[in-house]
């Protein structure tokens, strides 16, 4: 197959209310089998996808938020949150799940997957990506 591309999954929508977030996660999980250079970005209401303590019984929806913590096992190690989007919603990193991955080359040390980027840095990330999946 051709060389490795930089894939960016751009998540822009709240986890519930529409199906975009869940069906985006399905693409990420399938795409993990293709050995590309994968990044996930969360902007706008997309930052709500990673909030911890989600409770969906009241709306009768499946709570798929635990799946995000499995991303490290799928070798998805680069997760970017836009600072401005967090701040606009009164959220901080402490409101989000703590996502990690295990570094085989470093005695399986647990490392943080999430990095907060400014809007400007997020724009640069999009610019340098080969493929942007927008959800």
């Amino acid at each position, binding site marked *: 197959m051709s060389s490795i591309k930089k894939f960016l999954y751009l998540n822009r929508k709240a986890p519930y209310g529409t*199906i975009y977030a869940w069906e985006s996660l399905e693409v990420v999980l*399938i795409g993990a089998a293709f050995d590309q250079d994968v990044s996930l970005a969360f902007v706008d209401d997309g930052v709500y996808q990673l909030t911890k303590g989600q409770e969906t019984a009241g709306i009768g929806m499946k709570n798929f938020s635990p799946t995000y913590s499995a991303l490290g096992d799928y070798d998805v190690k680069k997760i970017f949150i836009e600072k401005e989007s967090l701040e606009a919603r009164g959220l901080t990193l402490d409101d989000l799940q703590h996502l990690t991955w295990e570094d085989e080359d470093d005695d399986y040390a647990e490392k943080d997957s999430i990095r907060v980027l400014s809007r400007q840095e997020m724009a640069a990330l999009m610019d340098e990506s080969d*493929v942007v999946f927008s*959800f």
Partner: protein
Amino acid sequence: MKFAIQINEGPYQHQASDSAYFFTKAALDKGHEIFRVFFYHDGVDNASRLTTPPQDDRNVVERWAELAEKHDLDMVVCVAAAQRRGMVDEGEAKRNGKDATNIHPRFRISGLGQLVEAAIQADRLMVFGD
């Protein structure tokens, strides 16, 4: 240039499918290649052969089918998204014990791997949606 097209919205409710159609047609007219058109989310509804718009409106499904016929386009409907939304071809009907089918024969049902592969193979992935 080689394009992959992803459509995330259903027909008539949203302009995404119309925009994707005109983009695809223009790209082909300019001599570009369309590696694959992939229908995801409510975009799978673009593949219903039962779609029957009023006579004075465009027929989004037939229009895609005709373009695909003319240019031998590969038009893929995501199986998981299709199953959720009751979009069924003969194979899926048999497998799931359904008594009817509604996928237009010019479209085919397949998995999300087809979307990821298209993004790898194409020079550009164009996403049409909200």
